[in-house]
Structure formats: structure tokens, C-alpha cells
């Protein structure tokens, strides 16, 4: 299953894919499109991505999360295209023997995704305007490097 998709995210499929009888904890994080941004009403959102890198980032992040925390399963999927209010844009599923580890790992996965995944949000506002949301510079940008390279 591709981790980047322009189709509605399939929670049931993720749960089937991560079934693990050694785990007593299942943590699911779902990011959904909300109806406001910086005080303006939002009617919808378009997500775009740099596909070749995005897929690799998610595969690597799943592996990293599994290595960093005592969890047994980690899957992450992200949607692109036009989303309506309430649609899920991202799902993180973590299963672990114990709940504390599962919460920690899921938090780490979504927080790290937000600074590594090459995805951009384009908002459509109630007043008819639209625009890209600002975000976090990736690590090779001048700002992220703090000017430490020539």
C-alpha cells in the first residue's frame, strides 16, 4: 500500500495491516482538515507533495520510530489532492505492548513528519481568497542550517 495517496485514507486497512497479538496498546492519530486558519474561515484545502521524496520519508520515519521506541507496529499514510472540512489528511497507527510507548511513538512520528515530509497545504477561505500556508524549512535550507555552510 502506498503511503502517499490521493484517495480517502483507509483506517480499516491500516488496522488490518498492523494486527499484532503481542500488543496491548493501539494508538491512532488522525489529522483532519479544520474550518479555520489564522482567524479566517476555511472551506477546503488542497495538499500537494513531492512524491518521490515523500514516500521515502514516510518509509524511513516508520523504520526510525520502530527503532527508537519499544513498539511493534508503525504505519503512516498521507493524503494529497482536494480535501473537505473533516477529511483525514494523515493517519498514524502505532501498536505496542504498553500504552506509554505507543503514545510516545505516535507523538514522535507525527511531530517528525511535520518537519520532514515535503507536503504543502493550500487553503481556500470563506471570503473567496486562497493561499499556501507557511511551514517549516527543510533541513538543507539556509534558514534551517543557520548559515553553517558556505
Amino acid at each position, binding site marked *: 500500500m502506498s503511503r502517499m495517496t490521493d484517495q480517502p485514507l483507509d483506517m480499516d486497512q491500516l488496522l488490518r495491516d498492523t494486527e499484532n497479538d503481542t500488543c496491548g496498546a493501539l494508538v491512532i492519530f488522525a*489529522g483532519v482538515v479544520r474550518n479555520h486558519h489564522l*482567524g479566517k474561515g476555511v472551506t477546503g484545502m488542497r495538499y500537494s507533495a513531492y512524491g518521490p521524496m515523500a514516500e521515502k520519508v514516510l518509509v524511513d520515519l516508520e523504520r526510525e520510530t520502530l527503532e527508537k521506541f519499544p513498539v511493534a507496529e508503525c504505519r503512516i499514510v498521507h493524503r494529497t489532492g482536494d480535501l473537505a472540512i473533516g477529511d483525514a489528511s494523515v493517519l498514524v497507527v502505532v501498536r505496542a505492548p504498553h500504552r506509554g510507548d505507543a503514545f510516545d511513538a505516535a507523538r514522535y512520528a507525527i*511531530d517528525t513528519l*511535520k518537519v*520532514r515530509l515535503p507536503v504543502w*497545504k493550500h487553503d481556500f477561505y470563506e471570503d473567496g481568497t486562497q493561499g499556501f500556508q507557511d511551514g517549516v524549512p527543510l533541513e*538543507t*535550507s539556509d*534558514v534551517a542550517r543557520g548559515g553553517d*555552510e558556505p
Partner: protein
Amino acid sequence: MLQIEFHGVLQQAAGGRTMELDGVASGATVADVLERLKGERPALAAHLPRVACAQGDSLVRHNREVDIHRPLVLLPPVSGGSAEETGQP
């Protein structure tokens, strides 16, 4: 001829999704190419300090040599994930 690929807000600033840059010498770095782009597309200049670059599925640091046979992909600050953790009120 080096193909440049733009994403996110950079597409608006560049006036398109891609462009081709003539005369990029073998051995040119990412920083060299970005400097050229300031002249070619002045509207990009304000964005470039916050831009990361990639070729294929990997990031390329600004002091590294560009493979002129593959597109250089310009990536503005990212905003994936959920809406509720933007750090905004």
C-alpha cells in the same frame, strides 16, 4: 540544460511548475544554481533562503554539486500533517 522543478508557493513565484536553465556548468553547486535563479526569476529571491533542494528522493545540500542530468527540485517550507499543530493560535 538543467531542469528546475518548483513546488508549493514557489510555483506561483516562478510562474510555473518547471523551467529550464541554460548554461549550468558541470561542477556547479546548488547554491550557484539558486543564485542564477534570482536573476532569472526575481520573484523567487525572497523565498530562496528558506528553500531546500532535492534530486530524486534525496535532499541535496546547497554546497553540493548538482547532477545536471536530473531535475533540481525546489522545496519551500513544508506544512504536512494535521492542521492542529501549526503552532498558530
